[in-house]
């Protein structure tokens, strides 16, 4: 398969991944350190038959991508912590109404305006619980420029396949760094498009509750339907029926749970015989890999579990290693004060020690610090 190799910035790689996946609309609002995604899309989109708009705020940007998706375009927006907070309103709308959209969140230090140019991993919980109500969400976590591209393509595919918003949860270091990137020729990577209805328009049910995922025809193609942010029945119209509301909320969440194996991807490094596990995403996982190698050089059976999907949480993967290996402890390095550690601890249920290694120090967590934690468990 022919391919193109480039030297590229992580944020630009996200834009290229989106275009490769067939993205035709970007609605955004500038925010450090994500803005290069918007800048690249502004330049590239019209050349591939797509349109860009810089909206008046983050709320509008998120609304515009949902609107564009309903009109048939694969749509992207990009932001960082404070902007992601503003997007939560209409992200929730997309979750409930099952509109495929991709949101890139290049994490920076928070809360509030926080550290605009300082990397962080503190939106892990915001990605999952930022919007109100019980809802489905998928979040992918690239750790290199190549993965910025690959995971963005995967984000679009998952979004279209499951009619669910997908967050590309990256950070200021991965977004701003430059590395080599291989872009496959068209056809080199699978591209998923949303399912179209085959029934007659008058028979079309946008929210058939007996199905996990329903077809989504674009506005203007003869399937006139109603979309509302209120709880709805199978025809898409508002209902106050709590039984239906319960059933539907479960349906949209369970559609992800049922497809765990398709959605949740985890990169495992030296985990086969691991007795000490490091669980890390993004930039922290890069340091963690060095620490694991160093530990192995010192005769410690360490391994790295690096989720490429953080939501749904890779419970099954963790469960498998906990039941198979004699895990003495899990180290969770993260650039926050313990968001992911809580989730790991929940899965471990006291079977082994789980210790977080937290940092708000802007610089990445050092391999030496992770190694020190590994040693304590060895």
């Amino acid at each position, binding site marked *: 398969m022919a391919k193109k190799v480039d030297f590229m910035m992580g944020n630009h790689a996200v834009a290229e991944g989106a275009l490769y996946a067939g993205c035709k609309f970007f609605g955004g609002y500038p925010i450090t350190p994500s803005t290069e995604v918007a800048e690249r899309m502004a330049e590239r989109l*019209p050349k591939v038959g797509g349109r860009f708009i810089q909206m008046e705020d983050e709320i*509008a940007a998120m*609304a*515009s991508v*949902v*609107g*564009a998706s*309903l009109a048939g375009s694969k749509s992207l927006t990009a932001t960082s912590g404070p902007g992601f907070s503003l997007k939560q*309103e209409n992200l929730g709308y997309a979750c409930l109404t099952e509109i495929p959209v991709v949101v890139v969140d290049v994490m920076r230090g928070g809360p509030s305006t926080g550290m605009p140019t300082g990397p962080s991993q503190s939106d892990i919980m915001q990605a999952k619980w930022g919007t109100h109500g019980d809802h489905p969400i998928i979040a992918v976590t690239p750790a290199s420029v190549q993965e910025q591209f690959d995971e963005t393509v995967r984000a679009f595919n998952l979004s279209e396949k499951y009619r669910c918003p997908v967050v590309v949860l990256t950070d200021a270091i991965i977004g701003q760094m430059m590395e080599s990137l291989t872009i496959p020729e068209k056809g080199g990577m699978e591209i998923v498009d949303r399912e179209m209805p085959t029934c007659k328009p008058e028979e079309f049910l946008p929210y058939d509750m007996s199905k996990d995922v329903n077809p989504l025809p674009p*506005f203007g193609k003869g399937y006139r339907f109603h979309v509302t942010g209120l709880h709805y029945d199978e025809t898409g119209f508002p209902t106050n029926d709590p039984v239906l509301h319960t059933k539907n909320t479960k349906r949209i969440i369970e559609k992800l749970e049922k497809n765990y194996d398709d959605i949740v991807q985890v990169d495992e490094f030296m985990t086969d015989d691991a007795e000490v596990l490091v669980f890390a995403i993004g930039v922290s996982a890069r340091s963690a890999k060095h620490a694991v190698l160093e530990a192995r050089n010192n005769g410690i059976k360490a391994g790295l579990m690096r989720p490429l999907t953080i939501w749904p949480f890779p419970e099954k993967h963790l469960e498998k290693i906990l039941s198979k290996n004699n895990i003495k402890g899990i180290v969770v390095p993260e650039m926050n004060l313990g968001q992911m550690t809580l989730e790991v601890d929940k899965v471990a249920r006291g079977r082994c020690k789980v210790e977080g290694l937290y940092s708000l120090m802007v610089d990445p967590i050092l391999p030496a610090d992770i190694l020190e934690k590994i040693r304590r468990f060895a």
Partner: protein
Amino acid sequence: MAYNYSKYLRNEKLPHIWCPGCTYGIALKSMIRAIDGLGWEKDDIVVTSGIGCVSRMPGYMDFNTLHTTHGRSIAFATGVKLANPELKVIALGGDGDMTAIGGNHFIHVCRRNIDMTVFVFNNNIYGMTGAQYSPTTPRGSWAATAPYGMPESNFDITELAIGSGASFVARTTSYHTPHCEKMVKEALQHKGLSVVEIISACPTGFGRKNKFKTPTSMLVDMKERAVNIQKAAKMSDEEMEGKYKIGVLHKEERPEHVETYDSVVGFQKGV
């Protein structure tokens, strides 16, 4: 002329939820008559709304309809239009929806001059949440959150639209139904961003506590206070005191956003 309104309605969703005396139904009929008069295909029309009483309107209309979050009708509509400019896009909302929480989207869509139509149903109150004041509640009027009378100054929606760059701005009322239909139709035909303020009555929320004894008295108020723009031109400021102009208040030819975007950036269709 007997109109076949039901052709454009989701009849199974009726009766509507609006209170007795609410004039949204009248305005809805004017919109249907205008759309019917233009001969537009139902499949080509997208109607978006935000939150509030009028925001339930798209549910009754048999088009592609999108009931969004509070104030965001225009922002969703912008995405729809940019993704598929061939769609005829209508964004609607009430006074609170469009000028308070959605105020930012309202002024910016006017500035961009995107080819869509914005209908603002102005009944001077937040009806659905129980009669709290909006940016158009007249000073001194009663509202649930203005128990001593509205203490703030208010927006003139049409002036806000003109000042923000809308290329077509009109005002009408739900009393003047043929006029309402005419304004709606002209706005829909206009290329660029068109805004129509439709003066509406909320007898339950606004009327009851503001000396309008019956819903009809609110319609009478529209009849007495609305002055056609041609007639208003001949009237002195004193004569216009307490009255408002209805008609096309502003119209200009200005480059439409999507066309401009496509030509400026070298948009390549069908790639």
